[in-house]
């Protein structure tokens, strides 16, 4: 028990994980800036939305407020909307008709 507390302090692990996710957020951001085509940009926004869900879970755990985590579900449900819009715009002749 004591060993667990010493080796794996959960808060520290969470902090490290948050830093890793910040780093990957910056990488996606660079892809959005550089992305030669529009599809690259959209797919980076996608990846960021998934990251956001993870961020929400991590922060709810880190700050000890589990009841604010409900928006997570909506993030997951709407992670693909931008894909739909862009592909519909470029592939079909009209949107929503």
């Amino acid at each position, binding site marked *: 028990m004591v060993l667990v507390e010493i080796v794996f302090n959960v808060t520290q692990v969470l902090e490290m994980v948050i830093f890793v996710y910040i780093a990957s957020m910056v990488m996606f951001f660079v892809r959005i800036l550089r992305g030669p085509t529009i599809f690259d940009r959209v797919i980076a926004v996608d990846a960021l939305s998934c990251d956001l869900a993870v961020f929400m879970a991590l922060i709810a755990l880190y700050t000890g407020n589990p*009841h*604010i985590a*409900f*928006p997570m*579900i*909506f993030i997951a*449900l*709407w992670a693909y*909307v931008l894909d*739909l*819009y862009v*592909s*519909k715009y470029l*592939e*079909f002749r*009209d*949107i*929503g*008709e």
Partner: protein
Amino acid sequence: MSVRNRIRMRYKKRDIVVALSLAISMLALAMVLNMGGLGILPPRTLRSLARSIVINTYNPWNTTLTSYSLNAVSAIIWDYRGIDTIFETSVLMAAVTGVAIVLRESHKGRKPGGQGMSIIVKSSTKIVMLLTIIGSLALAVHGHLTPGGGFQAGSAIGATLSLVLVALSLQFIHRIGIDKDTLLKIRYTVLAMILAVALVPLISLVLGYSYAYILQNQVREGSYFSMPSKFFTTPLAGTVFVFNILETITVASAITYIVLTVATYEGKTEE
């Protein structure tokens, strides 16, 4: 051509002046915010007004100031500052009327055509639609207990229906019984109901057994009128619950109406 150039030159000069003056004023603003005009941010204490609201949002020991809502934000939106929210819903209604007027031609029923996207997108969108609507209903019903409320739930439903419009087609929307005229009627009716609920306390004034205020929820100073505060043991928060449900319907229909109208308008297309 020279006229065009002159106009552009005039615009260019004006632009530079505008941009400079705006930048200077906004920098002044940043200075105000950071130089301690608002105290040290973030502060250690709440402002007193916020503290009174937070303490009174669910306070059985001070019945004249409470609204029996666990969620303080919902309590502010529909109880402490209810009139703001009613005006805000009217702004949404003005926008709906405006879109309907500006894009008048699309109001005439057009024959639904178009096509959906591939079958993978279609079926997963159906799943997403069901789940979102269930989640939004939970948001609306629990708006006074957990994060959520009328506008949040309504915009989630409206967003889902517009997603369905993109992924499936207009035909599908018509098939599940959603029509622009119906939406408009629902919207007007439910808005009238919101206003009626705001005026319900006046009935007790007319009957003459107690004084009552517009938008009153619980017992207040000088008035014994009260909406139900509990449903068995669950807190109900009186009008907050009712308003959340009604607001969900209005906002959902308004947003769907706006998106449908703009999407079915025949403008000039490229090519």
